[in-house]
């Protein structure tokens, strides 16, 4: 473990702020899927770049933790590097790129392919915690709709897709019902990842810094993607196999290789892909 940055408390935030955050997190765990307002602090990274996730991670991080940070499924995307560096600087904790070694995984836009365990926590960065925001911009009003569990607006929105296009056209940030009570934004993960949230063994925490909301899904909680009996939810992925590891199950990034229509598909989860490639080499 490196020595944390001089002049700053462990994990940057002062202990009183961490206590406020932990109380908010406990409340969020107690009411799965319900957005809890909190006094988000101004962080040294910009709003919209993961300040909510960073505050949640800072509140739960201990010196013995091993942190993994991913953005778009990858450990080596610039903002993931920046956030990992931040915690290395201010907390001096061990970091890893291996999903199975991490005790806390902070993520933007993906859930790792490997199933997570009870002793792991997944922290999501959330740009817009309000699933109804595109349908009703006023928070005073959406708060009322949540209180009444009045989610007709969202059902109509999904139905309109079916009427116009033949199926639901929401490809990411696909709304879910948590514990049969609250409509929740899963953050802008691809709809492909939604089923992983259902009865996940790991605790899932969601931090929205700019919008100042935290919510949570406790382990083994029911999480259902919104759908209709005659139009069941279907996750989307590119039909190709990964060009590196050959996986036909993982979520793929499309990479343009030239200006003549050349493209390859590779796993978005770099650890999953790397582990498979290493195993294949080991066998060969």
């Amino acid at each position, binding site marked *: 473990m490196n020595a944390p940055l001089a002049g700053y408390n462990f994990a940057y935030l002062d202990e009183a702020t961490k206590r406020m955050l932990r109380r908010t997190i406990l409340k969020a765990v107690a009411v799965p899927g319900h957005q809890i307002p909190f006094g988000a602090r101004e962080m040294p990274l910009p709003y919209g770049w993961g300040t909510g996730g960073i505050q949640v991670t800072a509140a739960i991080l201990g010196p013995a933790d091993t942190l993994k940070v991913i953005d*778009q499924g990858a450990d080596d995307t610039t903002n993931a590097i920046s956030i990992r560096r931040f915690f290395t600087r201010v907390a001096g904790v061990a970091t890893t790129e291996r999903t199975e070694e991490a005790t806390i995984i902070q993520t933007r*836009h993906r859930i790792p392919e490997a199933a997570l365990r009870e002793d792991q926590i997944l922290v999501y960065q959330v740009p817009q915690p309000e699933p109804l925001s595109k349908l009703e911009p006023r928070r005073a009003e959406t708060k009322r709709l949540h209180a009444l569990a009045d989610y007709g607006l969202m059902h109509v929105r999904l139905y309109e897709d079916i009427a116009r296009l033949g199926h639901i056209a929401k490809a990411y940030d696909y709304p879910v019902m948590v514990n049969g009570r609250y409509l929740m934004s899963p953050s*802008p993960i691809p709809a492909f990842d939604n089923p992983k949230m259902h009865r996940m063994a790991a605790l899932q925490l969601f931090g929205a810094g700019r919008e100042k909301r935290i919510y949570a899904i406790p382990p083994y909680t029911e999480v259902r993607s919104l759908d209709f009996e005659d139009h069941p939810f279907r996750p989307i992925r590119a039909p190709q196999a990964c060009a590196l590891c050959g996986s036909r199950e993982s979520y793929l990034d499309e990479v343009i290789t030239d200006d003549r229509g050349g493209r390859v598909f590779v796993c978005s989860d770099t650890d999953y892909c790397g582990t498979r490639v290493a195993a294949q080499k080991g066998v060969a």
Partner: protein
Amino acid sequence: MYVAVKGGERAISAAHAWLDETRRGDPAVPELTVAQIEQQMGLAVDRVMAEGSCHDRFLAALAIKQAKGDLIEAAFLLRAYRTTLPRFGASEPLDTGAMRLRRRISATYKDLPGGQVLGPTFDYTHRLLDFALAAEGAPPPAAPEAAAPVAPTPRVTELLAREGLMQREAAEPGEPGDLTRQPLTFPAPRDVRLQNLARGDEGFVLALGYSTQRGYGGNHPFVGEIRVGHVTVEFTPPELGFPIEIGEIGITECQMVNQFKGSRTEPPQFTRGYGLVFGHGERRAMSMALVDRALRSAELGEDVTAPAQDQEFVLYHSDNIEATGFVEHLKLPHYVDFQSELENLRTIRAALARDSMAEAAE
């Protein structure tokens, strides 16, 4: 064979080194000192203190230097520093009636107790580029100095209130709200609205104030008074139980006098739009006062129809640190979402193509 690009970590380090180099510019040109910025870019320092929500001229000047003169970036640096400071409590209310004035003007009375004091203002300058400033020279001659006024300078709105023509503000009990500790909730009380506007983006608040003048929620404002100067800050430490002076700060206060038709419970009278900001910031204080009054529409029983009267619209979008972060986050990678949209669009297009082929076959 495709190989994934690596090396983001080295790229970030190199980019930051380049940033440092461009900040310094041509090393043949002397480096700016923080003191020079603080003294000679005073209004930029004031804006950064206001939007950075931290009254410290040295830190604001340092932030401007570090941000290469990008004032929103500078305010962000100052806010990120401010958030690490302990919060001791709330000061006693400032007595702006006892302000040590550099400037005080009223647009509602030709003359009034304490008089009109123009002070150091751009007003009535002719905006002609002064090429003499391009040459370094001796400092300008000292401005002539009048004798300090002995008469007190009561606030214009207080004169009106004594006559019963200006609505009195009800004092709210307890400490004022602090949106750096508690998130916004709606309807937001006026203390929190004022805090939000005082730290809000000058351009945004200016445009909203302007929109009220052009008919989007207007209230026939008059500048009752603008005063610029220094006030003493008093704080009551719990262990003492009485207020002590802990320093003074430079502020600008604007009180707008607005018409009010009256309601069932209140006679027709003037109402107040209030602006108070760190440093010398008349544009900011005046815009704030216009928007403050517009945001009172609901409580005064007026129709809420215009953007400037809409609490959620104004208060959720005024903060330029939040706004710039979220607008600029669009440059972060969105491969995953974009990929899901691509597959989605391809699926829809394929289905449409199948349908039209089937139709053509029929």
